[in-house]
């Protein structure tokens, strides 16, 4: 029964959302507001349980970790932002968050995003070993990465005027950027189509007799609903236009 009901809800909400492709309508608005409400409610419940109960209340009461009161107090001080007279108290919490955050993040970011990435960019352009001089596909990749990084950096280098060789390098940088945007767009299309395939796959699954032909029944009802809404809207417009 749970799966049956779940199927009808899933199909109904999917079709409500896709009805926007026709035009903005009350079905879409209902599903949109429901989505915001349900996801917010779910998040609040999970955060209450996982943070307030599991990570704060239970360790304090059951395990005697009373020092967690300090963390709870710092959290509560954040809320003083809403009381103008004592809003300055929230600075203590923010100072803690910024100080802790910077201390943790800065060394890790430098290591992961700067040092490791630079190391990955500055690879040998060719190898000379036992087999003599070697320049294969791996080396060609390295050259491409190096040229790409340098020319894109030139494009974003605004301290000098883009003329002569610098203009040429910046122009090559634009081509690299365009290829990157194209690849990004291609992947975005792929992602969006995957989501569509996922929903249509579920709609097909729920159109079987096991689920009471949920997709077919709800599609018909929504189409009828849209026709009724369209007719009512036109009538309302005509009434307004009449002198």
């Amino acid at each position, binding site marked *: 029964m749970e799966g049956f009901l779940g199927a009808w809800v899933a199909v109904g909400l999917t079709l409500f959302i896709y009805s926007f492709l026709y035009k903005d309508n009350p079905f879409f608005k209902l599903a949109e507001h429901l989505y915001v409400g349900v996801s917010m409610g779910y998040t609040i419940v*999970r955060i209450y349980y*996982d943070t307030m109960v599991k990570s704060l209340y239970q360790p304090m009461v059951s395990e005697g970790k009373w020092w967690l009161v300090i963390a709870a107090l710092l959290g509560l001080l954040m809320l003083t932002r809403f009381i103008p007279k004592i809003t300055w108290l929230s600075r203590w919490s923010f100072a803690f968050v910024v100080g802790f955050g910077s201390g943790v993040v800065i060394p890790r970011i430098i290591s992961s995003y700067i040092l490791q990435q630079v190391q990955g960019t500055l690879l040998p352009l060719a190898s000379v070993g036992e087999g003599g001089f070697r320049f294969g596909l791996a080396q060609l990749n390295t050259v491409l990465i190096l040229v790409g990084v340098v020319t894109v950096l030139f494009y974003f280098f605004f301290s000098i005027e883009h003329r002569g060789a610098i203009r040429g390098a910046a122009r090559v940088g634009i081509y690299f950027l365009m290829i990157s945007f194209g690849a990004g767009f291609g992947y975005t299309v*792929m992602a969006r189509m995957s989501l569509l395939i996922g929903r249509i796959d579920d709609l097909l699954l729920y159109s079987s007799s096991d689920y009471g032909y949920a997709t077919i029944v709800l599609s018909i009802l929504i189409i009828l609903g849209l026709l009724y809404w369209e007719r009512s809207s036109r009538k309302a417009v005509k009434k307004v236009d009449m002198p």
Partner: protein
Amino acid sequence: MRSFAEKMLAIDRRWIFGLIALATLLPLLYPVGLPIRPSPQVKNVYEYIEGLPEGSVFLLSMDFDPASKPELYPMAVSILRHAFKKNLRMMGMTLWVTGTGMAEKVISDVAQEMGKQRGTDYVFLGFTPGSSAVILNMGQDLLATFPKDHYGMPTSELPVLKGVRSLRDVQYAVSLAAGSPGIETWYVYGKDKYKFELGGGCTAVAAPGIYPLLQTGQINGLIGGLRGAAEYETLLERKGKATSGMDAQSATHFMIILLILACNLFYFVTRRKDTRRR
């Protein structure tokens, strides 16, 4: 010709929605079974898991919510099937609060299918707030970060976590991520500091941003989007939702390419005639 091109450029966009819907629906109803060739980055994840000895500790962080289910759920199913088949000690968790229910469902469903016992063969640690701080804490003391599993069982008493004290005891970790916190968070605060091997799986839209990590060897493999999930299913020789969606994916891509080409053709036709007039 010009009037036709102009008409086409001003076509009601709902016709395009209809064409895309048809291109998706028809291959799902009548599958063709186009070949799927696994890419090296997907093979790397598969081969690393394949090479792990029985009883190795494997961590799967399902950092996504239902919005990314079509792409990442099939990946989670395949990786869990592979890990259970290899008799690895499975640790499941999520850094996304909205993904907790779904992550719990996929791990318990696949475990039941593969005949695995909760607490003995696998553990679902669930969600704990803090994202990057959670990973750092797991690197210091995993059991203190998760004193109880998702179901309220004390983690220190679970046979599956015997000998596991921190992330340093993890042989391989994979983050299936729809954004942040995800693969990058696991690399920056996990692998880079605690030195365990890391692989990733992500939505197609996130893949271009993750490729630099793959290129530099910061992660050892990447499963990108529905295509990546289908490649993993091919390697596992067990077809699932991702493989069945690949025909539709190819058809929609073909349709989009055709539409882009047609649009450009009509645009140039109208522009050329405009230039001649002037």
